[in-house]
Every structure is written in C-alpha cells, then in structure tokens.
C-alpha cells in the first residue's frame, strides 16, 4: 500500500504537469508587438511614414510570416549565428528604416508555407506582414476585412522605380491587387519565364553519342538510351526516366517537373482558361486535345520513360533523383539549373544542359503565359504602420538593387547570394516583365570586354562577378562553384537559348476567381489530378478522360465556366 503522502505527492505532480502544459500553450500568443503611440504631428514620424527611404525615429517592430532559410551554409563564416531575425537583410532594414522583424511563423517555401498561412487566417491571428500565395486568399482576406488598405502607402512610399516596374506589366499586375479602387497588397511580379525547358545530362548524351533533341521522338530516344544503356552506371534497370511532379503534372505556368511542353504539342493547355472557337472562355483541362496528350503520356509511362514511382515521390525525392545521378532528365524552367546545382557537389563531372524541346515540326515551341501576378504582400488591418511593407519593398527591390553604393554593405549581400541564401522577411520579388532577357546581351558584352559599367543594378553586378568567376574556373580547368554554375547556366546559357527559340505564346484570358470556385474548385481539382495520375500510370485507359469531362461538368464545372464568361463580359 502506498502511503497517503506518496499519493498526495503524485496527485500534486500530475496537477503541476498539466498546469505547466497549459502554460506552454499560452506563452506563444503573447508576442504581439506593442507599438508606441505615434504622434502624427511629429515631423520626423510624418516624414518616415510618407517617403520611401526615410528611417523611423524609433524602431518599429513588426511580425512576419517568413519562409524558412537554411543558414547552415554560413557556418564558419563571419555571418555565423545569423538567423531569421538577424541577418544581412534584417540588419539592412534596421539600419536604413529602423524596422525590426519578429517571426510569427516560419515554414518551408511551397505547400508548407501555404498551410501555415491558412492556419493563421483560420485562427484569426495573421502576422503584421506576410506573403499570401494566390489571389483567392487575397480576396478572402479583403472580404473578411483582415488586411489594410495600402493605397496611400503605395502612393507615398513606393519609389518611382517600383511604380515603373509595375507599369512594365501594363497594369496587369497591380490591378489584381486592387479592390473597390483600393490597393490592398503589393503583388509579386512573375517575370516572363519563357517556355518550359528540358534539362538533360549532356555528359550521358556524349557518352552515348546522342545529339541535341528537337522532336518528341528525339526526346524519347534519349531518355530510352539513358535507361537502357545506363551511362550513369546505376546498374541495370536502376536509372529512372523523366522526373515528374505528382501533384502538378501540368498546368502551372513556370512549374517545376511539369509536362506542359508535351501537352502543348497536342494543343492542350491544362488548367488554363483559354479562348474556345467561339471566343468564349473554356477550361483547358476538359478540351478534346487533352486526350491524345494523355494517351501519349500513358505510353511514355508504360515504356518506363517516365519515373515509374513518380506518384509517390516528394519534392525532396525528385531533387535527390536528379542530383544523385539516378535520373538524367526533367522538364523545368530556365532556372532549372538551380534545382540541380547540388549535382556538382555530388558528381563534379555531371553536365546538365537545357534544351527547348520537344518542338513541333516547324521547330517552334508553344507555351501558355502565366499569371503575371503570383503572390501578394499584405499587411494586417490594424497594424499601425502599413507603409512599412511598401517602404521595405522599395528598399529591397529598388534602393538595395540600384542605389546602394556602400561597398561593405554590398559585399555582405554578395556573400549571401554567393551562398544562395535569402534571409529577407519579404519572400517575394518585384522586377521588370522582361527581366529575364533584358540584360543577356549586356552581360555577354561585359563578359567579353570585362567592362561591367553598363550593368545597372547591384545584383546584376554581383551576378556578373559570379558569371566571370564561373567562366574563369572553366577556362582554368578548375571545379566550378555550383552556385556560379547555376547562375550562369540559367541566366546566360538558357536565357540565350530561349531568346533565340521560336516561341508561340498562348495567353490565358482569366486568372481570377468566381463565387462558385471557392466551394467547388477544390473538388474538381482533385478529380482532375486523379484523372491525370490514373491515366498516365495505366490504371485507367485514356477513355477515362471522357467520363472525367462529364463528371467535371456535372459537379460544378459548367457553373464555373458560366461564371467565368460572365466575369469576362462584365469587364
């Protein structure tokens, strides 16, 4: 028998434990910033709040939903110990504007981040500043009256160049953030990314004596030889075909591991609202052109030219397949070299080369253009200094890029970017529509002559130095730095390739949302995804596409199509 003392002690312990557990849950939510009362008549405050670059007289704290950055690459450097609230960007914001971030939540880019954002919205506790990933969310936030009106902040605190950049999209970007004539967010601009690009292991192709692919047959032949002749030495049957995304097989402009180019060969534009024969909007995924494209993909999968396990791969798996030399082919964008930059560390002899392929018979490639506005920087309604977000954007995307002259500061940013580390609390980009092609010629001249004076922005100059370093290392037969290689390969080699290709652009006519979409689109999207996966993996024949189309229409697709057309005519 236990003594009464012992028993009471254990009860006390349990009570204490549960109390401490409850305590833990509360401590996190008390971090909201207490802003000091601001005297608007104070000229220093007033100036800070109405100009792009003026610093606040006192530190303004803000909480932010941040995308996680890995700082491990900085170990052993002068920046050791940097973190998401103290890094080269946050220190820059602190020094220039006197603002300091606190992290409300942090998540990996992509689905993880989107999930955190929706949790924050569901919980009703959104951070002072955060980036939301689509217009639907922005609209929801606006309708729920959760975000601040940034119209005045934009007028006063966006620098001239920021306004000029937004203008380079002919209003297609900023308009998407405008509700009832109020600017509710700063949109991330999606610079034109060109068509999808096929990346192949050139060293494998050379080993097998294969030439540059043009048509679909060439592509098939190359991948087939990769599998059969195993130039990577993975062992018989161990080399994997085309790496494909399992959640987005196609349909995202500029998406990674997507098969948009193959669909486009057949005139299919999945997930896009395109003009049909009669000039009305039609949903690309339910058009008859889809079926032969799907049949082709099923055939490729059956021949093992598509990764047999793509349906179960995570994004880490996909990257690992490519960087570890298990697969020698994937479809991506011009920046695909960044995806496989790690290959150079694991296998220095690997050579990834980009091709604009498969091309149609006349040598052209068809692409659909993306939504020029992708994500949105929003400010919580009730946050005392909504203009902070605009000031920060001006500082990051204009001042730091074009006007900062302090060599020590620039060196720090260069060190960061040469390690491919972000760190800015603003996980977005604001750049000219043609930023991708804009400077290729200038770069090439500069690399030839060694005179970089024509390059305007600091990041261009940084890039120039990095490209130079890459070219020098190649010339001297040294091992190139993966980051320098990735930068050069995407922004010079691939940019040139794309610039000189015959590209047909298809412009989707609708990117917005309609009332029924909110309730019905997720179900339809799920149905669509299952259809792709089942047909491609051969679980169903391509004929299953027909029944998908009819249930898509029945389950709300027709309603949505009608609403999209109404929205277009009412414009």
């Amino acid at each position, binding site marked *: 028998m236990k003594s009464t003392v012992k028993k009471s002690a254990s009860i006390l312990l349990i*009570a204490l434990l549960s109390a401490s557990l409850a305590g833990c849950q509360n401590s996190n939510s008390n971090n909201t910033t207490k802003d000091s009362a601001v005297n608007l008549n104070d000229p220093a405050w007033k100036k800070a709040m109405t100009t792009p670059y003026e610093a606040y007289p006192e530190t303004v704290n803000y909480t932010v939903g941040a995308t996680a950055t890995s700082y491990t690459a900085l170990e052993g450097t002068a920046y050791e110990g940097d973190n998401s609230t103290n890094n080269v960007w946050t220190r820059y914001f602190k020094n220039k504007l006197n603002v300091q971030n606190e992290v409300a939540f942090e998540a990996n880019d992509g689905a993880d981040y*989107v999930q955190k954002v929706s949790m924050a919205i569901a*919980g009703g506790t959104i951070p002072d500043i955060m980036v939301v990933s689509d217009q639907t969310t922005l609209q929801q936030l606006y309708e*729920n009256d959760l975000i601040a009106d940034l119209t005045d902040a934009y007028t006063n605190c966006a620098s001239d160049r920021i306004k000029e950049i937004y203008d380079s999209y002919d209003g297609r970007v900023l308009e998407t953030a405008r509700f009832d004539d109020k600017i509710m967010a700063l949109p991330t601009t999606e610079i034109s990314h060109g068509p999808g690009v096929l990346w192949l292991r050139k060293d494998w192709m050379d080993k097998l004596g294969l030439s540059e692919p043009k048509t679909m047959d060439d592509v098939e032949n190359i991948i087939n030889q990769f599998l059969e002749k195993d130039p990577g030495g993975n062992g018989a049957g161990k080399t994997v075909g085309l790496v494909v995304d399992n959640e987005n097989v196609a349909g995202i402009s500029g998406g990674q591991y997507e098969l948009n180019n193959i669909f486009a060969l057949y005139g299919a534009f999945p997930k896009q609202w395109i003009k049909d024969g009669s000039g009305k909007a039609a949903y690309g995924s339910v058009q008859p052109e889809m079926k032969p494209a799907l049949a082709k993909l099923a055939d490729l999968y059956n021949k093992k030219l598509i990764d*047999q396990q793509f349906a*179960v791969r995570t994004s880490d798996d996909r990257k690992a397949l490519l960087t570890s030399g298990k697969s020698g082919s994937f479809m991506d964008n011009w920046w695909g070299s960044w995806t496989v930059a790690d290959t150079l560390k694991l296998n220095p002899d690997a050579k990834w080369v980009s091709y604009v392929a498969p091309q149609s018979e006349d040598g052209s490639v068809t692409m659909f253009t993306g939504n020029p506005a992708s994500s949105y920087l929003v400010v919580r309604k009730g946050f005392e200094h909504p203009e902070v977000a605009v000031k920060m954007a001006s500082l990051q995307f204009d001042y730091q890029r074009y006007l900062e002259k302090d060599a020590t500061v620039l060196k720090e940013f260069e060190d960061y970017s040469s390690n491919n580390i972000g760190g800015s609390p603003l996980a977005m980009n604001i750049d000219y529509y043609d930023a991708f092609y804009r400077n290729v010629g200038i770069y090439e001249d500069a690399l030839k002559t060694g005179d970089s004076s024509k390059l305007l922005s600091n990041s261009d100059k940084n890039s120039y130095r990095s490209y130079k370093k890459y070219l020098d290392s190649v010339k001297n037969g040294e091992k190139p730095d993966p980051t320098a290689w990735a930068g050069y390969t995407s922004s010079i080699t691939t940019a040139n390739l794309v610039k000189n290709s015959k590209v047909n652009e298809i412009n989707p006519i609708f990117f917005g949302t309609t009332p029924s979409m909110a*309730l019905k689109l*997720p179900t339809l999207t*799920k149905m669509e995804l299952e259809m792709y996966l089942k047909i491609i993996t051969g679980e169903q024949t391509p004929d299953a596409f027909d029944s998908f189309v009819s*249930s898509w229409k029945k389950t709300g697709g027709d309603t949505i199509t009608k609403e999209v057309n109404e929205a277009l005519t009412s414009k």
Partner: protein
Amino acid sequence: MKNKKDQTAFHLMLAPSMVFLIIFSFIPMFGIVMAFQNYIPAKGISGSAWVGLDNFKFMFQIPDSRQILINTMVIAIWKIIVGTFVSIVFALLLNEIRVRFAKKFMQTVVYLPNFLSWAVLATVVMNIFSYEGPVNALLGWLGIDPVLFMASNHWFRPMLVLTDVWKGFGYGSIIYLASLTAIDPGLYEASSIDGANRFKQLWYVTLPGLMPTILLVTTLNLPNVLNAGFDQIFNLYNPLVYATSDIIDTYVYRVGLVERQYSLGTAIGLLRSVVGIVLILSANKLAQKLTDYRIF
C-alpha cells in the same frame, strides 16, 4: 474495499483529464454551427452568414463523400478484424512459451513499434516497399515483376491494414495476456488429468476463458470504425491512391485547412460525428447484451 479518503484522491486524479476533455472535446462542439454557415474567420461564428443546408447539399452532390465514407469504414473494419485476430494469436502463442526470459524479450520487441510515430514509420514503410526496396528485390529474385505497393489502389489498403497491425499488435495483445493469467490453473490441471494435450487445452480451456475479453474489446472497438488512422494515412498516401485511401479525417484536413473550406469541412466532420454516435450507442447495447458490460 477502499475507504472514503482514497476515493477523493482518485477523483482528484481524474480532474485533469476532465478539464482536458472539456477544453478539447466539449467546447469545440459549438463549432458545429459553422457547418450551417458560410464561415468567415474574421467575422467569427456570430458574424458569418447562415446558409442553411447548402454545405450538406453540396456534400451529398460530390462523389467524394460516398467514397471517403466507404474508405473510412472499410479500412477501419479491416484494421479491427485483423488487429484483434493477430493480437489474440500472438497472446496465445506467447502464453505457450515457458522460458520466462524469451517471453519477456519477445513481448518487448513486438511492443516497440507502438512507440514510434507514423511520421517516422512512414519513411521506413515507403522505403521497404519502394521499387528498389527489399520486398521488390525479393519478388524479383522469385521472378515476379516489381509491384509499386504504395501507388497501387489494389495494394494500398492491405498495406495500410498490415502496417497498422504490425505497429499495434504487440500493444493490443497486452490485455489478452493479462486475462490469460486470470484463467484458473486448476482447469489446466484437470484437463491434463483428463488427457488433453497442449492444443486441446488451448482450444477447450484458454479460448473460452478469453472469450469475454475478446467480445468486450471488439465491441468497444466498434465506435473506432470511423477512426481509420489519420496519422498513418496522411503520412503514407499520395494523390494516386486517394480513391482507396482518402478517409474522412484526411479529407476534412485537406478541404478544411488546406483549401480553407471551413464550413464544408465542418459539414463533413459532422457527418462523421453522426455516424459515430450511432455506432457508440449500438456498441453499448451490444456490449451489454454479450458481456453484460455497459458504458452508460
């Protein structure tokens, strides 16, 4: 019998879990009204517009509802059946081992996976059953074509059941082992005098002795029919096998949290609760009938 003072202590020990229950199970119940609204977080429950049964209408209109309900039941029922069976057989076999050390050792080993989370185990399972994994290597060695277990609608459910049983049967067998010790040793002596061998003893003494426990545990498991295991499925599934693996919980997670369809998510969750309460009531009745045990 305990004296009065002891009882108070036990009641006090119950208090934290009661508080827990109230906070996490009773208070959230009010959230059900979201299912009848077009819920908007900023406006809260009091400010959001009432839409009547719209969410339910849409729920019954989409093919997903039927599918997830079927998936949930099928997966859970198989888990209960196979899980109970394996646990009982294991307990019986273990009971036959006479070497104390070997018995304890075995028990500990099968008990271990129970302490690992699915987030960890999923990776292990995925690797074992991948194309390059040991299982397919073995199949290849036997001349059988490799099977992609985790991406096949044919295999995914059996995989779910088997891996779940593998994780839980050690833990599940404890209760049977305990009730085995309660069987009167005199019965074994008597039966062996009557000439029964080990198998006959098992059949005529052990199993009947276990029967009340088996019935009770199985009946109490019935309400779990709607609890097919979110952790496991969420960590193992992929879009290709939604058709056979998407259960109510994973669906509500995706619809409610990922797609931010709070009201639709709640409506589907409510469907689960309604079916759940029917099951609990019938389980209670059944338990009362079969084993004379009632929860309320």
